[in-house]
Each structure stands twice: as structure tokens, then as C-alpha cells.
């Protein structure tokens, strides 16, 4: 369902008093922007400081306190989520939001979020489920809402819900169903299968695994041909040349065992070094995307075996600084995209950064 383009978002609490597309999108954004405050995620808070100011997102202190479901369900006369589906009329959200604006505390936030779980619009329900996870005493109830929202016809609702599930319940069977569906629907005669190759120390990270936030983000729009089975390629993540050399051989072996021709490679950090080494060893690939890849003279692609090579990085990456690698590829065959972000090595695998800086537009099709 396409939304009308919003040129002026509606701030809190006014957004909760309307039902237009701008109001629905603003409500979802406000709920999602409340979540980093509850988690005391200062990086996210500072990243979204300007958006929080524009939308006048209320701030409540992160005490770690969880609000009991009975404390909000009874006063609001809400039926438990497990009972028959209840949809609350729009005017009640307006009142709850203005109560919260007058008295910004945990109970008021929980009341608004609990009510929003019964919002007529699934986007607001999904956003509320995500935001409320760290505040309610019974967060497991919210997984069902996210799972239900992944069935929506609306792309945005599906993406928000799937990203939330990937973060809060990566073991959800719904996520594997989504991955399977997309893979089956798109893999067939595609010219490429895309592979995501993680970097050093990241073998146990979730973001690159099927169901992880970055993997899901790529799969659900950017690269629908992204390999999404459980045996996705992984390497030791050990910080040594020997480990990267072994990983390059393993990548070749993995590709051979999967009858994938010329994979489109999206790599992070030294995952890029592994991929480049593999091309030197004879692996043919499609386009090669290097995200925050340290520059070392021994790791360069064999350009006769790759498609276009693009490097996406931030300014003065601190991890690359510690690694001792260079920040900039000097070979003109590697196209560079420098994001207006400083220091953060992991920013290039953050879906929010991809969206914000439209990284999709700089990687090869």
C-alpha cells in the first residue's frame, strides 16, 4: 500500500489525533523513536536527535522498570491481547497521547503503547510492539503481533515487523518462512545469487545471518536473491592473514558446493579482504561491494574475475585505524562512496544508514 509522500511530519502528541497517511507514519516513527530512549541507546539517540526534535518525541528516563500489563489493561478497560481482536477508535489515542504529553512517565508511555497494540493500522501496531518490548512486563505477547504483521500486504508494515522480529525473536519460524518464500520466488533463473560475507570477530554476530537485521533488510528489497538458507557462508572471523587465506579457499569451496555462478558479493570489513583474495585464487564473482573494508596492498580484487567493485565507508573509521589499514582505495577501478558519518565501522551494515543515505543507489544493480 503506497503512502502519500510526507513533506511535513506531524509531531507528538498531535499525530495521534489524526488518521491521515502522514499521521499514521508519524505515529509509527514517534513510537519507534521512543524505543532507543527506553533502552538508553545513546548512539541511536544522538543519531536521531534531529528527527526526535522534529517529531517532539517525549523522553522518559531509562530506569529499566517494566510496567505490569494489569496496570494498564484494567484502567483502560482493554481486553487481553489473547482474547478476540479489539480495535480501538482513533479518539482514544488522542487522549492517551495528550495525557502522556502532560505527564511523561513510564505508566503513561505504557498506556499509549498498550493501546497502540490494538490500533486499526498495522504499521502502528508493529511499531508499538517493537517500542513496547523493553517496557512491558510480558514482552512475549508482542511477538505474535509482529508475526501477524509480517503477513501484511503493505511492504512497509512487513519490513518493520520482520526487522523487529529479527531483532527481538530471531528464532521465530515466521522469519525462516519469509526467507524461504523470498528465496524460492526469486532464485530460479537469476543471473546472480548474492552472498553476504561478514568480517573479523563477527562469526557469532546476528546481523549477517539469515533472519538478522541487515540480512533481512537486504533480502526484503535490496537483494531479493540474497542467499538465505541456514548454511550461509561463514568464516572464522579470526584476525590474521592465515585465517583470511583459509576463508578465501573456503569461500571458493562453498560456492562450488552450491552451484552458484558469479555470486554478487556484499562484504563487510575483512570479509572484503577474504572475497578479494578468493578472486585472486580464481573465484569468479559478479559485482563486489566492500563495506568498511580496510585497505591493504595484499588484498586487491582480480578485476578480470569480478564485476564492478564499489567501496562504501565512513570517515576515519576507528576500527580500520586500529587495524592499521588504509581507509581509501587508490585504484580507480574501485568506486568509492564516503558516507557523511565519522568513526563508526558498523554503520555500513546498519539498515537505517542504508535507508538514510540511499546506499542502494550506489551499489551495482
Amino acid at each position: 500500500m503506497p503512502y502519500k509522500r510526507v513533506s511535513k511530519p506531524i509531531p507528538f502528541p498531535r499525530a495521534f489525533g489524526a488518521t491521515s497517511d502522514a499521521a499514521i507514519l508519524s505515529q509509527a516513527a514517534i513510537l519507534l523513536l521512543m524505543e532507543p530512549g527506553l533502552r538508553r541507546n545513546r548512539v541511536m539517540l544522538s543519531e536521531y536527535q534531529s528527527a526526535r526534535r522534529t517529531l517532539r518525541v517525549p523522553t522518559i528516563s531509562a530506569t529499566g522498570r517494566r510496567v505490569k500489563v494489569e496496570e494498564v489493561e484494567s484502567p483502560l478497560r482493554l481486553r487481553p491481547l489473547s482474547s478476540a481482536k479489539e480495535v480501538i477508535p482513533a479518539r482514544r489515542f488522542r487522549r492517551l497521547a495528550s495525557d502522556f504529553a502532560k505527564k511523561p512517565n513510564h505508566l503513561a508511555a505504557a498506556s499509549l503503547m498498550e493501546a497502540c497494540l490494538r490500533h486499526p493500522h498495522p504499521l502502528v501496531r508493529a511499531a508499538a510492539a517493537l517500542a513496547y518490548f523493553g517496557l512491558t512486563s510480558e514482552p512475549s505477547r508482542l511477538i505474535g503481533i509482529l508475526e501477524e504483521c509480517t503477513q501484511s500486504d503493505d511492504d512497509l508494515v512487513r519490513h518493520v515487523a520482520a526487522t523487529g522480529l529479527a531483532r527481538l525473536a530471531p528464532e521465530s519460524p515466521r522469519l525462516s518462512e519469509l526467507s524461504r518464500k523470498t528465496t524460492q520466488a526469486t532464485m530460479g533463473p537469476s543471473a546472480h545469487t548474492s552472498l553476504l560475507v561478514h568480517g573479523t570477530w563477527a562469526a557469532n554476530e546476528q546481523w549477517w545471518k539469515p533472519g538478522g537485521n541487515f540480512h533481512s533488510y537486504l533480502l526484503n528489497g535490496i537483494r531479493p536473491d540474497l542467499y538465505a538458507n541456514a548454511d550461509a557462508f561463514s568464516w572464522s572471523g579470526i584476525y590474521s592473514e592465515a585465517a583470511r587465506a583459509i576463508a578465501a579457499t573456503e569461500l571458493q569451496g562453498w560456492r562450488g558446493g552450491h552451484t552458484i555462478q558469479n555470486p554478487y558479493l556484499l562484504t563487510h570489513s575483512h570479509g572484503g579482504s577474504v572475497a578479494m583474495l578468493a578472486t585472486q585464487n580464481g573465484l569468479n564473482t559478479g559485482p563486489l561491494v566492500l563495506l568498511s573494508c580496510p585497505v591493504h596492498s595484499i588484498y586487491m580484487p582480480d578485476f578480470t574475475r569480478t564485476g564492478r567493485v564499489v567501496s562504501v565507508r565512513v570517515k576515519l573509521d576507528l576500527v580500520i585505524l586500529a587495524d592499521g589499514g588504509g581507509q581509501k582505495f587508490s585504484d580507480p577501478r574501485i568506486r568509492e562512496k564516503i558516507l557523511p558519518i565519522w568513526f563508526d565501522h558498523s554503520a555500513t551494515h546498519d539498515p537505517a544508514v542504508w535507508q538514510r543515505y540511499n546506499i542502494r543507489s550506489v551499489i551495482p544493480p
Partner: protein
Amino acid sequence: MRLLLGALRLFVYRALWYWLGIKSAGRALVRALGSPDENIRSIAGILLAKSRKRAEALLQEAVNRRENLPIVLTVLGSIGDPALIPQLRQFTNDQNPEVAKAAQEALKVIESSAKL
């Protein structure tokens, strides 16, 4: 700014431990392997791995406490000392699959480097 300060702190810890022998600074570096921030974990890992054998005693303490075990074993694998092989072998069947996998991968890298 927070990330920059966090990273600078790690470089200072490393200097204090590596050059002045202040063990508590080294331990702080090992603790940073469990940071929720991927940047901080990565920088701590790189600084420890680059310290080679000098970091082994600190990492050994963490192994004994099972502190951040998968990444600590990965750092030990990065150091690549063949003397660590018997100890890594003990973890290859660990009940935590992430620990077992990290130990197996570290062993694989160290053993294949030793063969060269």
C-alpha cells in the same frame, strides 16, 4: 563522540598495559571484548591480537573465568601460538556451540599455519 572517547580509552589501556605493564589496564581491554558496541569489541580484539604472545596471560585469565569465551578464543586463534593447541582442543566439544565453533576455527587456523 562517545565512540571516539571509547576507542581512545582502549588505545590508552593498551599503552598502559603493553608499555608500562599495568595489568588492570590489560584486563579492561579484555573486558571490552564483551562491549555491546561492535566497534569497541573489534578495536579491543585487534589491539589484543596485535600484542601477540604478550596478551596470552590476560586472555588465559578470561578463559579460566569463561568471560566472553567465543571472542576470547577467536583472539587466541588470531595470535596463532601453537602452544595453545591443547587448550583450544578442550573447548572443541563445549556445550555452548558458539564456544565449540570458535575453538574449532582457532585450531584449524593455528594448525594449518603450523604446517606451512
